[in-house]
């Protein structure tokens, strides 16, 4: 809990305005409205199947990959609507990076894994790419470990290091927002700790949004917490959104209290 942050003074980075999401006829998210602040960590928590990941994937339009998905309402990144007809998904995803639950290192060298994004943005010079690779790997404290084996397959790294490589790969595209979908759940406690330290460090520069099942993790790293639950019609709803310190010491909603005190979920 980083109480020293004065959240309300921060600029709004992502504004979610009455967003509804449907998978075909299934109404998965209903009436989600809240603001995510710049250079902070926001944790989305809630029981399994409440739509946390779906909500997270609203911000880089990853839900678009599923046939039959429909979004109503609007999401704004720096005031620009994401679901506007003129919106460009590719440039959105360059601004909003994502780290997945399991490390999804591509079957290629460590170096190629990192520069694959920048390469496709048109950066061709070897020296520039090497500079990006070094900076990105330094940012996730992996540089010293791998600087002599950049040609080795990314899959040869340990799972924890693979996940940091995935974060470095996301950073290499120079995003503004980073989405992390339970990115520590497949890792051992030590690797988890390293990633959490990394999150706190990255939050100085980036807006970070995490989905987590781990309540302690939310408490340890996040500034703001969003608690979600499905209602009686199985629609994922945002129940409570507050600074993490407030939510965990003095939850406003009975359901939030039940969840964080471990009475269900």
């Amino acid at each position, binding site marked *: 809990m980083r109480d020293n942050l004065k959240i309300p003074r921060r600029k709004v980075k992502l504004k979610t305005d009455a967003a509804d999401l449907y998978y075909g006829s299934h109404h998965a998210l209903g009436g989600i409205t809240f603001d995510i602040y710049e250079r902070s960590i926001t944790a989305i928590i809630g029981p399994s199947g409440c739509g946390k990941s779906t909500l997270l994937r609203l911000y880089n339009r990853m839900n678009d990959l599923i046939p039959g998905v429909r979004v109503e309402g609007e999401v704004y990144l720096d005031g620009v609507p994401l679901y506007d007809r003129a919106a460009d998904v590719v440039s*959105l*995803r*360059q601004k909003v990076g994502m780290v997945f639950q399991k490390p999804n290192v*591509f079957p*290629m060298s460590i170096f190629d894994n990192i520069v694959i994004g920048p*390469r*496709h943005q048109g950066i061709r010079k070897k020296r520039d790419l090497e500079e990006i690779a070094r900076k990105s790997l330094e940012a996730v404290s992996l540089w010293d470990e791998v600087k002599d084996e950049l040609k080795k397959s990314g899959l040869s790294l340990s799972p924890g290091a693979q996940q940091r490589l*995935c974060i470095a*790969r996301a950073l290499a595209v120079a995003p503004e927002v980073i989405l992390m979908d339970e990115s520590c759940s497949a890792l051992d406690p030590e690797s988890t700790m390293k990633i959490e330290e990394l999150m706190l460090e990255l939050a100085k520069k980036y807006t970070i949004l995490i989905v987590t099942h781990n309540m302690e993790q939310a408490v340890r790293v996040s500034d703001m917490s969003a608690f979600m639950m499905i209602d009686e019609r199985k629609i994922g709803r945002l129940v409570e959104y507050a600074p993490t310190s407030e939510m965990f010491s003095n939850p406003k909603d009975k359901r939030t209290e039940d969840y964080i005190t471990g009475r269900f979920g």
Partner: protein
Amino acid sequence: MRKFKEKLSGRVFFALAFSSISALALITVFILIKGLPIIGKIGLSEFFGMTWAPVSQNKFGIFPMIVGTVSVTLGAALIGVPIGICCSIFLAEYAPAAVRNIFRPAIQLLAGIPSVVYGFWGLIFIVPLIREYLGGPGLSILAGAIILAIMILPTVISISEVSLLSLPRQYKEGALALGMTHWQTIKSVLLPSAKSGIVAAVILGIGRAVGETMAVILVLGNAPALPASLKDSVRTLTTNIGIEMGYASGDHQEALFATGIVLFIIIMILNSTAQYVTRKKH
């Protein structure tokens, strides 16, 4: 009693499995016994020599047939592989479910057409086209290559498609999440990741082309001589056996079995390369 049944069923399955393996062993041994002596008799240099004149000169040089097989197969691969791979990319990545559900069975149907029908169709459709627009007899390497290109499509398409579809979904999501376009994702992440499967598809397709007999008999012209251009007639290793086995005897028949040995080795090399490539992981 139950235990006895268990044991018995195990034995029965083993016997049946063994019989298929022993068929392979029998055929191999038979071809070797029938074919090796003639190679020993005339020597490797004559066996791989230029002249095939079994009846008139007693010469059994299969080099022109090797050139025939290689040229027709290479031509088929040059035409069929790019089309096949593009088709598999389309099916795995672009085609909506409705289109895919029409394409997939249609491609399987292509594999089910008897090869003589391909040959016949080539003879009355492709061969005259070549004769008319490019000159020559029409019965040619080009005609064979076109027919074989179509015939290897099902192999190339289905194996490539499976190897693309079996990639973890996270690869595609990861690449798209980096702001890569769909095509960039396919080109830089999916295709390289599926490389071993696609290479295997190509090799197995080539193996199919090398082994094909009936379709090419009808469109190649079957002259056992070195071709000078794509419009020339050639004879492949398979058609050599197919055409002459009916009336051959003595040394001639043995030379045809020896041709079979060469084919057998080529196919074995291709298949084991395909297996090796698919097993090799990063």
